[in-house]
């Protein structure tokens, strides 16, 4: 159910009916699928994956049929269409998610090994449980330019969550398969952005009582190098300036897939989720890279794969199967 308001320059062609999740673990993409291009960068070597050990199941839900709804919050974006987006973040973010589907996406496939409905503490789902879904078409189910009023210059977590609920109400959606991404406009600095975080995901409750997983997605390029600008040497036509948009966006999306209730899904013993364990790796296994999804290139960080190296676990940017990942 969608009450999408076109944003002028952005058209969303996702079809909810086409969003069919695979049920099997390790949804194998063909070996001929576009391959991740690992690009080492000039940063000094950083340590291996963070956190503590493998991810384990906490008893909550995972996202089995991803539906992404993007809310452009505030009249600063523009009144009837997006006219104030100096870095082109809105179009890049939308393109990123619009390419994250099917066999042409061998990046988010690493998360389909995780599942719900198994014993708490499980680290390998195998064929048990219900797995994280990998859509066969774009997971983007709607966009909304909420320009009724200006977003606050420094919105609080409470205000951001309220905007996520407005988005859920606008789209008339709720549930753990929904992800509302609240995009703050250029110049708006949510409390803690740039210095404590680049983005985060959380859970709120819709007016109808259902879960609303949501993401606080600030205007990432406003943070510059702190949130990923030029983290990877630009290649494949991508802009170094905007690398953080997809690095951070992919991090939060993967974490929402595996822990939509923000604390009861797949975490390690130190409370790290899949993206945190692999954040800002600049060389070696799991180094951030430029990948190709369905013919388009994007900068991404790696995500954590429990079944890498026969269950030893590590960070990967390419995942075709449990025995073909790196």
């Amino acid at each position, binding site marked *: 159910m969608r009450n999408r308001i076109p944003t002028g320059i952005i058209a969303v062609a996702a079809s909810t009916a086409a969003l069919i999740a695979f049920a099997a673990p390790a949804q194998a993409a063909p070996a001929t699928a576009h391959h991740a291009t690992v690009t080492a960068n000039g940063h000094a070597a950083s340590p291996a994956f*963070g956190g503590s050990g493998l991810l384990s199941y906490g008893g909550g839900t995972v996202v089995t049929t991803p539906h992404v709804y993007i809310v452009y919050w505030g009249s600063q974006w523009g009144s009837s269409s997006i006219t104030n987006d100096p870095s082109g973040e809105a179009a890049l973010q939308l393109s990123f998610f619009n390419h994250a589907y099917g066999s042409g996406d061998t990046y988010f496939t690493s998360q389909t090994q995780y599942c719900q409905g198994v014993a708490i503490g499980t680290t390998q789902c195998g064929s048990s449980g219900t797995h994280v879904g990998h859509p066969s078409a774009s997971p983007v189910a709607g966009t909304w330019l909420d320009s009724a009023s200006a977003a606050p210059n420094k919105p609080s977590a409470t205000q951001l969550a309220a905007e996520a609920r407005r988005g859920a109400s606008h789209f008339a959606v709720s549930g753990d398969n929904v992800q509302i991404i609240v995009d703050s406009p250029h110049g708006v600095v949510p409390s803690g952005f740039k210095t404590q975080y680049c*983005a985060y995901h959380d859970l709120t409750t819709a007016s109808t009582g259902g879960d609303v997983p949501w993401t606080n997605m600030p205007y990432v390029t406003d943070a510059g190098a702190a949130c990923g600008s030029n983290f990877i040497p630009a290649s494949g036509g991508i802009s170094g300036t905007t690398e953080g948009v997809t690095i951070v966006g992919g991090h939060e999306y993967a974490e929402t897939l595996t822990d939509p209730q923000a604390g009861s899904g797949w975490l390690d013993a130190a*409370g790290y*989720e899949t993206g945190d364990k692999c954040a800002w790796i600049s060389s070696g296994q799991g180094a951030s890279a430029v990948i190709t999804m369905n013919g388009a290139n994007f900068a991404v960080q790696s995500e954590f794969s429990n079944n890498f190296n026969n269950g030893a676990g590590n960070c990967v940017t390419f995942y075709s199967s449990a025995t073909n990942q790196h």
Partner: protein
Amino acid sequence: MSTRSRLAVTATATLTLAALALAGGCGSARHTAVSDPPSGLPACHAPEAPVLPHTAGSLSETDSGAYCLAAGRLLDVFLTAPGGSAPATRWSRISTADTSVVGYGSAGVLTPPVDVTAGVFKAVHHGVTTLSSTLPNGTVWRVTIVVQ
């Protein structure tokens, strides 16, 4: 979050719990409210206002001393590597010395900035423990958490 004065974090900041107790829980200068917990626990300060949803307070690398946290509440911690550090220099994962007093919360909800190490901790049971982290050069950050 208010701007925090940058305090040099050195190995001398690795105060022991006993020393903290003797010093009456001497926190960083920006924290003025000191409470006297019941049942013999050391005095402690309230942490800075929280950054993340659902948390009760926040600490940074400029903080030292003893901080109060009510049982069941969450605390977020953000440690920023010193300016001018070599690329990829970061504080290590923030550890709790006694998970029966302060356990690990869900820190993975956020993407930290490149030079920031983040952690979320949950006050589990009345008592005292420490949170700590180190820089590659051996500098240690450590605070005491008093769970009331």
